[in-house]
């Protein structure tokens, strides 16, 4: 970690310390975004950091939103070769693009489909060699499409997320999910996203500036890092806020007013 250029997001997530043990082990990260400010770049950044040469992480990437080629193209520009990582068994890609869980018959229920997806993730983790089993990161892109795959059954989605949460406890893996806050904003009680916020140890919100649109600033990130208890003790609750600009090959993060 020390050799790489760390940015404000890395620091806010505690990735500026030693890479062993992985600071996000056993923790649940929720990225919330909206139409004006997509949070996918945060997910890409986390893929890049997880696959850094100094870490031993394995990513299980459950993709409902985009095909492998999309992520490959973006991560190449960020300096990470997903094809090589896939071949090295460090990047395991579950293509859920047809919005169907793997190997499911037509007659099975939505819940059954999610159970099978959970089983596939569990089997993949258990099938890893011993030294890699403790360094798994599960990424889901994105939860709103999991809900679509479950035919709107948000209860099944919450059950699935609960079981994924149990994996973080059982195997010390990280769980990183993305969801769109504005989908639920018209609901009186947006239970799904609220439950996800309660489950999350770290909440990363990408939203527009309160002052509106700007050319040099694409939005602001607020990172709420709950000081959850883990085996190393307890870290204090911390909140970070900074602005960002998404460029072709990188994302710049900076504090408000610090750019000329």
């Amino acid at each position: 970690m020390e050799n790489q250029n760390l940015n404000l997001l890395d620091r806010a997530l505690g990735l500026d310390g030693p890479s062993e043990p992985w600071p996000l082990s056993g923790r649940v990260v929720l990225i919330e975004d909206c139409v004006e400010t997509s949070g996918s770049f945060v997910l890409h950044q986390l893929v890049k950091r997880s696959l850094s040469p100094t870490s031993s992480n394995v990513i299980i990437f459950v993709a409902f939103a985009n095909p492998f080629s999309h992520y490959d193209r973006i991560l190449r520009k960020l300096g990470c070769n997903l094809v090589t990582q896939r071949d090295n068994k460090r990047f395991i890609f579950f293509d859920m693009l047809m919005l169907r869980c793997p190997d499911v018959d037509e007659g099975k229920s939505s819940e059954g489909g999610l159970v099978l997806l959970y089983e596939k993730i569990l089997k993949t983790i258990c099938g890893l060699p011993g030294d890699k089993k403790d360094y798994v990161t599960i990424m889901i892109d994105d939860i709103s499409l999991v809900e679509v795959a479950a035919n709107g059954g948000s209860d099944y989605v919450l059950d699935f997320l609960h079981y994924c949460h149990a994996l973080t406890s059982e195997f010390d893996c990280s769980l990183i999910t993305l969801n769109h806050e504005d989908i639920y904003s018209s609901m009186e009680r947006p239970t799904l996203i609220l439950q996800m916020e309660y489950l999350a140890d770290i909440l990363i919100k990408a939203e527009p500036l309160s002052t509106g649109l700007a050319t040099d600033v694409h939005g602001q990130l607020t990172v709420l890092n709950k000081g959850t208890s883990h085996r190393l003790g307890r870290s204090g609750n911390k909140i970070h806020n900074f602005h960002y600009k998404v460029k072709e090959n990188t994302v710049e993060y900076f504090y408000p007013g610090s750019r000329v």
Partner: protein
Amino acid sequence: MADTICRTLRDGGLEGEHAPALTIKDSKASPFGFDVFNYVLTQLSNYILAGKSQSRGLVVVAYSRSPSFYVDLLKRRGIDIASSHDWIHILDCYTDPLGWKNWLIDKDISQEASSLSSFCQDVRNLDKLYSLIIEQGKGLIGQGKDRFSIAIDSVSEMVRHASISSVAGILSNLRSHDQVSSIFWLLHSDLHEIKFTSVLEYLSSMVASVEPFNQAAFGQRVDLENLSMLEQNFRKGKFHVRFKRRNGRVRVMCEEILVELAGIKFTPVLSEDEIINQRLLPKRYGFVQQVQFNLQLSEEERNERAKVVLPFEHQGNGKPIQIYDGRRSLGENKEEALVSTGKLQPDEDSGKGQIIYFRDSDDEMPDSDEDPDDDLDI
């Protein structure tokens, strides 16, 4: 005050009385309910271990955390349950609440239970859950008249899998079981209808709410102005507790919460006067002022202020009134017109402008029938 809650749970209920029940509720704006839950759990565990409580055992119904989490939590607080756990049992509704692991084709993946915890693999069946809790509790205290306590780490999770009425039913049954000494649970109020929260509050003898320190900061888009308030909300909160006494009286108390590295801390609320005094102590006392403007008067300013003659009739010192018209300094011009109550003073110098004031109230008797607004032309 948090200790008052713990002592009430420690003391349990009288013979023939329902066990004291505590609802801890929080919301997204101030999500410290789980920290409070852990605090109460630790305190009650200490009382049980020291033999100071009515209950002799504790059943933890774990929905939102694994049993190993609670083992680690209590270990960090100096209670090693891994080695000695004849007084505590964890009912694991977290690892496999819906029996999905039973559906798995390859059963080698499934976990083994330990003597400290046992699985509940069907949280939808609350009758079965009730039986499991009572069975585990009796297993801890043995035969006899001893009692045990129950802690449920999330009734919000419980009600996801069952109806409101069945959740209310199980809690009520647990509370009224004659071997249950006390019971407490955690609820995230913004996940439910008000009806469910109200039902639980009616079932409880104590309701502890965690509320945001700065209510105004919640729900707004982050900007530089509300960021510091959000930061405060992330570390501090308000803790309101409502106690229902046996005689029917309700008592409300309030404290402040501070979430620190070592855990959660409860501090008494400062009164408004104390807060203002803390902020406005003048520099001569050595405290740094926390406001950006000076609200204190210096000695010189106080003297000048005392010298100002107010342009009203009644100076209140018994002397004849001197009206200061703003053009001449005080006491300088003896030709100044003197006005005493009820008399009209004609102006001797007709060249100057004057305000001639007739006091109506002494000349006219007040007429209660007359509406003073009659002359308005609306």
